[in-house]
């Protein structure tokens, strides 16, 4: 052991910054259809490769290929397209509404629509999602009333959450959507706890936990993996790797050379990496994982590889920290375009139909917005009565809060 030269701190940097011309040709994109589909009761150790590859179904020609293909029929695929377009139309309008001063804040999921929209299709009534703020697709692909989402975003008099929560922090037990937290990652562990409760009770419900790739660095990600693996909780653990965490590229959270999915292997959890912009691939992998959970085989970890095209939130401007053309250079394409092309390839879809559907959905969103505005907007009101802000801190209002409410003049 000879004397060594001075150490220096290595700090990972993204390849491209504003002004650079992004080139992702060095990012290995496995061929569609190439990944095997193991039986659901497989041992994690036998499918380690699936944590390092990308499971893809649609190839560059828009065909669905390989063992993970052929799970959805034409109608289901059209519904998927409609769901994604609805999310996209909703995001556009709500981003605009924030700019117009109708609310304080909004977060879009542009480019990531396939993930939540496809995933929701494998769930059953009674299952529970523990989402982050970028899974509006879980609600917008079900029959949850869009107008209630806007009421929430506007914190208006009809807001189901009484104006208490930041916009987009929806909650709907009935629709299997756990109340969103502003604190990252906490829901990841809670979903595991919820799933354990289902198993404790001998029920058949399963849970899904969601987390961004940046947030995998948080405590609750680790706790979630530990508890899920120890108790074989009936939960699907989803990492949405959209490459960015506000201004921070995924390399800061990922470190080393491994993938986010591979973190599950150290816990003996079957771990899959999937093309998150491929509706068919997400659906197939979700179905596989949900089946494992339902059959009591335990958790599955899924890394959905995608790209955050939009700003982090309406408070953010990504042009300050990433190259302008990154999103268009991104090698996995646009989930909506890709599904559209697949449907056209199948011979059941056309540009005209697509256009018509888009317009129909834009009208649907506009109409919901109109309805919601009847109940008010954040800055102009009306809101729920201010006295209600003292309610529901506890089931029954304790004396000190009764006194404070009185002090406040209510």
């Amino acid at each position, binding site marked *: 052991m000879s004397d060594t030269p001075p150490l220096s701190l290595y700090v990972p940097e993204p390849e491209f910054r504003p002004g650079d011309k992004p080139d992702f040709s060095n990012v290995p994109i496995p061929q569609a259809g190439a990944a095997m589909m193991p039986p659901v009761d497989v041992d994690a150790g036998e499918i380690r490769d699936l944590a390092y590859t990308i499971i893809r179904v649609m190839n560059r020609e828009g065909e669905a290929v390989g063992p993970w293909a052929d799970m959805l029929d034409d109608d289901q695929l059209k519904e998927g397209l409609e769901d994604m377009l609805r999310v996209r139309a909703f995001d556009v309008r709500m981003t605009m509404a924030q700019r117009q001063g109708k609310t304080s804040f909004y977060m879009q999921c542009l480019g990531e629509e396939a993930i939540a929209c496809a995933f929701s299709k494998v769930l059953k009534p009674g299952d529970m999602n523990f989402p982050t703020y970028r899974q509006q697709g879980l609600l917008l692909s079900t029959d949850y009333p869009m107008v209630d989402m806007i009421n929430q975003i506007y914190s208006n008099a009809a807001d189901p959450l009484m104006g208490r929560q930041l916009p987009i922090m929806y909650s709907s037990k009935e629709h299997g959507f756990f109340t969103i937290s502003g604190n990252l990652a906490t829901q990841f562990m809670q979903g595991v706890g919820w799933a354990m409760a289902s198993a404790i*009770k001998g029920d058949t419900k399963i849970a899904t936990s969601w987390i961004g790739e940046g947030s995998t660095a948080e405590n609750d990600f680790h706790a979630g993996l530990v508890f899920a693996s120890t108790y074989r909780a009936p939960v699907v653990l989803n990492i949405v790797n959209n490459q960015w965490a506000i201004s921070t590229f995924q390399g800061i959270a990922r470190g080393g050379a491994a993938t986010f999915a591979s973190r599950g292997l150290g816990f003996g959890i079957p771990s899959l990496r999937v093309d998150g912009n491929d509706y068919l691939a997400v659906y197939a992998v979700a179905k596989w994982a949900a089946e494992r959970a339902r059959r009591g085989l335990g958790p599955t970890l899924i890394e959905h590889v995608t790209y955050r095209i939009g700003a982090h939130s309406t408070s953010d401007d990504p042009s300050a920290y990433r190259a302008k053309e990154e999103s268009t250079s991104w090698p996995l394409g646009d989930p909506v375009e890709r599904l559209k092309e697949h449907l056209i390839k199948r011979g059941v879809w056309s540009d005209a139909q697509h256009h018509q559907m888009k317009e129909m959905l834009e009208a649907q969103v506009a109409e919901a917005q109109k309805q919601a505005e009847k109940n008010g907007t954040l800055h102009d009101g009306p809101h729920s009565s201010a006295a209600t802000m003292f309610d529901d801190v506890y089931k029954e209002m304790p004396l000190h809060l009764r006194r404070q409410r009185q002090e406040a003049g209510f």
Partner: protein
Amino acid sequence: MSRMTMIQAIRNAMDTAMGRDDNVVVFGEDVGFFGGVFRCTQGLQEKYGRHRCFDTPISETGIVGAAVGMAAYGIRPCVEIQFADYVYPGYDQIVSEAARIRYRSNNDFTVPMVVRMPTGGGIFGGQTHSQSPEAVFAHVSGIKTVIPSNPYDAKGLLLASIEDDDPVMFLEPKRLYNGPFDGHHDRPVTPWSKHELGEVPDDHYTVPLGKAAIRREGADVTVLVYGTMVHVAETAAQETGVDAEIIDLRTLLPLDMEAIEESIKKTGRCVIVHEATRTCGYGAELAAIVAENCFYHLEAPVIRVTGYDLPYPHAHEWYYFPGPKRVGDALKKVMEAA
């Protein structure tokens, strides 16, 4: 009725709750087969099965986070943190989650869970087995904080906590587990079997959250106190002969403000006692409430007798602990004040 230690009473409360309601589950580090390092859960796994009482990985984040998720599901977790000193890794799940979920979801989801934890010093546990962190819970809107001082209350309050629909932090003064502690560490230990509050009904009963108990009626000074210090205060009153009214708060939040105000209106003087460090401790809140609401009745400055603002030292434990001498001095001082 049985004679029980505080450990037995706590165990009996969980047993009673688990027997009455399938939804009650118990878990934490070493609580399963072994029954917990203080043996509070002994026998529960054998009786109710591994799926209702089990060991967890050493992750307070995970323990509380799992409990939150389970409570949201609709079951009632009663979890153990091995020492209150180790609750901090779970603090985010308590503050940001358990405490907020009812409010932020407008009752769509609720968190009926209990987090039990042994608290306080006096066992030569050093700085990480002696802490009293009640103030960092009491400051958090949306959770309740309970500290019993005897077996009877421990069972009744724990049952009330498990049945409560809001999250409850349940702090168990470990120095009281096996007997009431008068604060004289150099005297023989008295067992609970010699104390009237060691007599515990075998059946289900509750002690309501938010109701204080007057442990000693008195005319001269109101002592606001909870947990281990209740017994120390009793000793101090006895030893000084000061006619103190000793109020065992039992629940810090919700607080029985009416009992406090009523007593102080009678006595005109107030001593506050806790083992936790002073600055921003729960005693500060009590002093503030008294100063705000009983000002015109006060005849002397409020005095706080507390742990000093430093980590609980090992060798100097008994210099640190606010024993009967320090409490007694405060009683005398508050009586001397004009």
